[in-house]
């Protein structure tokens, strides 16, 4: 029997897709959508570690995206910091905040956790709305373009590659994490907390860790979003944005890194397609969330991959029978 490794071949496929996409996309409008898909996907990959793998809900993650965006905006705009250190320091700040919040919040379960994270997101959004001296209040604020030494990072053509690379790194980190002792501990927390503890897993500590990691993913994505869009607004941290992110994760597939990417892709494109019916957008998201939970609770990618995997598993079982337990 081979002690196989979950394939990282998917990473290669994703890289190829990212590489050839610009030659297919007709204009900058589509490039813009692709960039926003990438930015959302990065948040969703982090959020999926929390929701899909560790089984803990967060209805406030847009708050961390918002903090990342505003942190970079303020540090580069008000203090004249270079973009990269601003992004890193912001991520560090968000990590610390998430760490402090995680202990009391993640002690809660089920709806209580949902409500607490919801409250957390709303508080962040209120702070961004009201601290107008720093944030520009409800109107938002302009953001300096990202400078890379003397070079100004500007335009879809450049940002596409930056976000594409960041997405690949995010997928790689997530796949690595899942397939490690830490990742199994996270999945064990989801599977059975009491059994995880008895196996020597400090479940509280791992919940805190995954919450912090997912917040950092959100923060970094937010920082890039701010520089790319050259503008931040409290909308980026709103409750509806948090719900959008959760819907992406749920639709794409719980506990599937590629599922998070697929979910982000579909639900970033959808509002563009529905642009003419703006009022419908919220309803459609709600409907998708409901329908997914009812008809496909595992989400798209796990459901489809289970369908495709059926035959290989049979082959494996047969070869095992012939191999006669040559473990």
């Amino acid at each position: 029997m081979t002690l196989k490794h979950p394939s990282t071949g998917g990473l290669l496929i994703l890289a190829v897709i990212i590489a050839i996409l610009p030659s297919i996309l007709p204009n900058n409008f589509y490039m813009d959508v692709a960039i926003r898909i990438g930015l959302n996907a990065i948040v969703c990959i982090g959020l999926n570690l929390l929701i899909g793998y560790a089984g803990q809900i967060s209805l406030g993650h847009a708050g961390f995206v918002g903090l990342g965006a505003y942190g970079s905006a303020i540090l580069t705009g008000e203090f004249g910091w270079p973009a990269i250190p601003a992004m890193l320091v912001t991520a560090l700040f968000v990590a610390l905040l998430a760490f402090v919040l995680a202990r009391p919040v993640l002690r809660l379960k089920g709806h209580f956790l949902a409500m607490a994270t919801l409250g957390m997101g709303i508080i962040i959004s209120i702070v961004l709305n009201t601290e107008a001296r720093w944030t520009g209040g409800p109107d938002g604020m302009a953001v300096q373009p990202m400078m890379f030494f003397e070079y100004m990072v500007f335009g879809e053509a450049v940002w596409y590659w930056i976000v594409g690379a960041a997405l690949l790194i995010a997928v790689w980190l997530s796949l690595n994490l899942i397939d490690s002792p830490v990742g199994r501990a996270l999945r064990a927390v989801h599977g059975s907390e009491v059994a995880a503890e008895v196996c020597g897993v400090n479940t509280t500590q791992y919940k805190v860790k995954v919450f912090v990691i997912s917040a950092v993913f959100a923060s970094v994505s937010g920082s890039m979003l701010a520089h790319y869009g050259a503008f931040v607004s409290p909308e980026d941290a709103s409750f509806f944005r948090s719900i959008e992110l959760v819907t992406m994760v749920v639709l794409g597939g719980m506990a599937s890194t590629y599922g998070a990417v697929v979910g982000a892709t579909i639900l970033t494109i959808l509002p563009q397609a529905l642009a003419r019916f703006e009022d419908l957008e919220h309803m459609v998201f709600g409907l998708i969330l409901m329908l997914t939970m009812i008809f496909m609770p595992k989400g798209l990618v796990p459901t489809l991959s289970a369908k495709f995997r059926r035959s290989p598993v049979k082959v494996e079982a047969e070869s095992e029978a012939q191999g006669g337990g040559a473990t």
Partner: protein
Amino acid sequence: MTAVLTVEGLTKEFGGVRAVDELGFTISEGAIFSIIGPNGAGKTTLFNLITGVYTPTEGRVFFGGEFIGGKTPYNLADMGLSRTFQNLQIFMNMTAVENVMVGLHRHLDKRIDHALFRIGGMARKEREAREKAAELMAFVGLGQYVNHDAASMSYGALKRLEIARALATGPRLLLLDEPAAGLNPSETGEIDELIRKVSESGVTVALVEHDMHLVMGISDHILVLDYGRKLTEGTAEHVRHDPEVIAAYLGSEAAAVKG
């Protein structure tokens, strides 16, 4: 003989009901120590108290001579205390071998940077952990299920998977809560053999089990609980002839106790 576990005046109340009532006993190193008693006698509660899942209302537990009050289950796992569950607690979101690898957790590289960037020999360490876990699965007779999803396995196989996972922690004392419940006679026979094999490998075993044939045949020492209290304890021979035990078991199990 050295005492692995000593329990003194252990009590657990649930809203006025004493599930475990001033219980005291000692488990010696290397023994197969069984705990029997009717449904609701407090056997599972006792295991939950010993493993830190519940906090005692009163009383003290010593493991390897050390007072373990206030320790969490993962602290105790680190000290060499492991268990299985009466109602299966399998990680259904993982493969069988991954379940066992969680059992290995305390022996593995838990650094988050090593995990995220797959550095520090992580690929090799993971391969070794997987091999070790596969060996343990073979030890409990699940060699052919290594890469199966836990959710696809039969109840009997999952019972053994829990034992493999518990063994993976490297326990000094292993608590088994009804390992043969719901199994047919031939599967029960296999569990009997497995428990003996575990015991021979140097692990002290505490066994909660309703199957009297299994208990009477395998145990070095038997503790009988009723309403959370100790009814009696001693060898199978002693317990079998204790009138109080026979009285407590009046009904379906009486014949089995008498053997």
